């Protein structure tokens, strides 16, 4: 049908204009600044030079870090999938007592991440944390800084990176045709066989996508290796950041980033190919929704409950620690000892010492809203074009839009600010550095790849006939899109919208290079209050900001995402 139709759509002037816009945007903001950086790296001196590459090759540490990053990525692919799948099974598949309570803690990674999350784990597992204290009581010779190195990094990231599993794998799980499970049972299959042969294979496409995401996360891990890795386990991104900050070493940063990019591309291509092979189409016309499975084997049932609750404890402890310690003085925070008079609300008072303190929240909320709105709109548009035209141009577009996945956000930021501090012909000689726009562009760019993947899969789930029906009733393509298709994919879109929103709020790495000096976003405020240049011990403040962000994120998630579901349910009821 496509070949017949596309001949006609091509003439549609709106499509042509939009296509030009997209091509221009991708070139101007994704390709041009980054290629510019790469060009400078190798041709900066006027002649082609491999000097930065040689420098890196000579460095054992650089090579080691690259290998560590790759190792971490592979480990995480295994562990995160293991834990993520378990979480989804515990909340959506097995009949676990108290699943609703478990769910809340499993979902906690959605509302806090990065530095804050590491802080939480440090409070729990660090030298003064309750776990270490407990281990010391068991065995006085226990090394109190046991929680470091590859193990600690992998441990923390394993539990930190499961939010996408909880969101996207859960919904895939819910769409399994329960009758296939019953059929397998009827054919005599054990619960284990059902799980491994019937249920998990059905989740394969989603698992593939999540695996790619996890791999990328592991590859570009920054804060967890810095906090827990120590000297034994260093990864590549912190090194990139150090070099990116030093004007004479930027070329090294670029080369390292390129290495990351190449590894990413290799893995991505490999995975997309096997994804295509492993794909399947559900044939069920009348699906029945899944019923939670009670585990028959008593011993196993107890074991699974224990695991589920251990995970519950693992997920809850850092959050609880953050909340509790945010109400204590810094002595308690650093020593781990809490007594009754450790409690104080001074930390909170300090954070909101003036009305001015609200301003960064507002600015970040506006950026968050605009940024995620535009990126979602843009990705929807691209995904839509890719759906109706499957040709070389759109496939190239698909790959181009993944560029931000290949580069650390810091480097993207540097590329943007350096490229657009003088008038460039691609943007009609506009200077963006020092304007409000640049940061917005930055937020949009870094969130494109993930948003695009999700939008695409949402689109391809929409029945073509519904679209045809709207057209047949006289609606043009735009009207059809807005009134018919968009509402259908709205739940997914709102999910990704909230995720982006939550991601933008506390961002520092990208923000610090791009923000307008007079409009200080929250990430900068937090860093200023808690970073190196602050003299007072700032852990307490950090905790307070984390708690505030958690509340804010929960609000965003429930108002944007939850509310929509609620409205739909109410309308139906």
């Amino acid at each position, binding site marked *: 049908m496509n070949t017949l139709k596309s001949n006609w759509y091509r003439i549609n002037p709106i499509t042509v204009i939009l296509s030009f816009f997209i091509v221009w945007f991708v070139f101007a903001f994704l390709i041009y600044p980054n290629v510019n950086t790469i060009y400078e790296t190798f041709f900066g001196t006027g002649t082609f030079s491999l000097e930065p590459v040689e420098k890196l090759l000579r460095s054992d540490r650089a090579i080691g870090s690259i290998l560590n990053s790759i190792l971490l990525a592979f480990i995480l692919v295994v562990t995160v999938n293991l834990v993520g799948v378990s979480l989804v099974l515990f909340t959506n598949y097995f009949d676990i007592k108290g699943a609703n309570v478990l769910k809340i803690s499993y979902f906690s990674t959605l509302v806090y991440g990065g530095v804050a999350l590491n802080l939480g784990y440090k409070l729990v597992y660090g030298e003064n944390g309750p776990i270490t204290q407990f281990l010391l009581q068991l065995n006085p010779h226990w090394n109190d800084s046991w929680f470091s190195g590859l193990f600690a990094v992998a441990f923390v990231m394993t539990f930190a990176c499961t939010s996408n599993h909880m969101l996207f794998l859960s919904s895939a799980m819910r769409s399994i*045709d329960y*009758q*296939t499970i*019953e*059929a*397998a*049972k*009827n*054919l*005599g*299959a*054990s619960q284990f*066989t059902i799980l491994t*042969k*019937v249920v998990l*294979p*059905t989740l*394969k496409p989603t698992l593939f996508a999540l695996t790619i995401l996890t791999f990328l996360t592991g590859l570009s891990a920054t804060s967890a290796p810095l906090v827990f890795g120590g000297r034994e386990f260093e990864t590549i991104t912190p090194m990139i950041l150090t070099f990116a900050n030093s004007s004479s070493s930027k070329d090294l940063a670029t080369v390292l980033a390129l290495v990351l990019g190449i590894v990413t591309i290799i893995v991505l291509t490999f995975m997309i190919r096997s994804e295509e092979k492993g794909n*399947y*189409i*559900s*044939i*069920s*016309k*009348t*699906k029945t929704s899944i019923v939670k499975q009670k585990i*028959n084997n008593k011993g196993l049932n107890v074991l699974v409950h224990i695991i589920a609750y251990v995970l519950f404890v693992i997920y809850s402890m850092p959050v609880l620690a953050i909340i509790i310690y945010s109400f204590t003085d810094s002595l308690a925070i650093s020593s781990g000892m809490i007594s009754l008079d450790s409690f104080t609300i001074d930390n909170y008072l300090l954070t909101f010492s003036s009305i001015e303190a609200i301003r960064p929240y507002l600015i970040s909320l506006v950026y968050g809203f605009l940024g995620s709105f535009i990126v979602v709109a843009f990705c929807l548009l691209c995904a839509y074009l890719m759906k109706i035209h499957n040709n070389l141009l759109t496939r190239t577009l698909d790959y181009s839009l993944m560029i931000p996945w290949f580069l650390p956000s810091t480097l993207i930021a540097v590329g943007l600010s350096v490229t657009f501090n003088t008038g460039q012909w691609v943007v009609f000689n506009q200077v963006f550095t020092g304007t409000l726009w640049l940061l917005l562009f930055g937020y949009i760019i870094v969130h494109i790849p993930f948003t695009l993947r999700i939008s695409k899969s949402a689109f391809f789930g929409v029945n073509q006939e519904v679209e045809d029906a709207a057209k047949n009733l006289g609606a043009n393509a735009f009207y059809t899109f807005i009134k018919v298709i968009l509402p259908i994919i709205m739940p997914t879109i709102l999910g990704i919208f909230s995720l982006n929103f939550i991601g933008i709020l506390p961002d520092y790495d990208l923000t610090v290079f791009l923000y307008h000096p007079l409009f200080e976003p929250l990430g900068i405020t937090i860093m200023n209050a808690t970073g190196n240049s602050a003299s007072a011990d700032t852990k307490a403040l950090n905790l307070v900001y984390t708690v505030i962000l958690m509340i804010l994120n929960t609000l965003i998630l429930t108002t944007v995402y939850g509310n929509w579901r609620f409205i739909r349910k109410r309308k139906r009821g």
Partner: protein
Amino acid sequence: MITFENITIKYDDFTAVENLNFEVKDGEFFTFLGPSGCGKTTTLRALVGLNYPTSGRILVNGKDITKLPTEKRDIKMVFQSYALFPTMTVFENIAFGPKVKKWKKQSIEGKVHEIASKVDLDVNQLQKKVSELSGGQQQRVAIARALVNEPSILVLDEPLSNLDAKLRVQLRNELKHLQKNVGITTIYVTHDQEEALTLSDRIAVFNKGKIEQIGTPDEIYEQSLSEFVCNFIGDNNQLTSLVSKYPDRFSLLNQTDFSKFYSRIERLKIIPESDSFDMASDEVMFEGEIIDFEYYGLYTKYSIMVEGTTLHAVSKEKLQKDMIENKKVKIILSQNDILQYK
């Protein structure tokens, strides 16, 4: 032999089926027939072990299986939506049960091919993904997947309801032959009367969680025990108003005990007004005129206005269109063909 004893099944407060008692004989093709939501699937699932009765017992050959989990029962089910495993090939789907039972690899292969050829799936199709098959082929896979386990009882939940008419008829025939050849006790669920009538040895008609009648197809059709069964199982003419208008003409009916009267539409004979007809003593005749007709090819269905009531009659003979309009006809009906209800 399968025995249902006082089976009641509730979903929370809602009683889906109530106090069922019936038997299915070995080798029988037994059908549950009834409108949507009457509890057919619920009963079936209790037999298969996918849900458990609130009270009562289910016996197979005298053995109580009420609480046996489904995987331990020798009863295999074909699901309404087939419930094929979408991630597996056709072969893997069929071989699923034997693999679970850890049959030898070779004997699995042999058996799968044997069953596949029985349901008319060729070797090529065995290697395909199930999503690449047409609806009818998918159904055959579903049946093969159940049959390969050589169950003593096969259970099918509206296996044809998703198919188009032509395919349905074709598969229905295949199913019947298969059952005849293999001789398995078969329980079949449907809400399609034609399917029930043509396939079954015996039919249980369900209504609102209860069985209204159990019998052979012709018992059910010709001696429907209740008004519900009568209406559900075929096309009828409502004769109540005619009877009450001319009670004398219907002298053979029991008009004291019964107040509702039906006859199957094929029992009505039509003859041109001008023709004369030798009426038997049990027959009644009315005059009417044809007001509409529907052409079915195999037959034509006429609507005849008789004394203010529209009656239907079928005839293999087709009348010319212009001859039909407002054509006066006589209709003749034997009182023995009239079904009477309270």
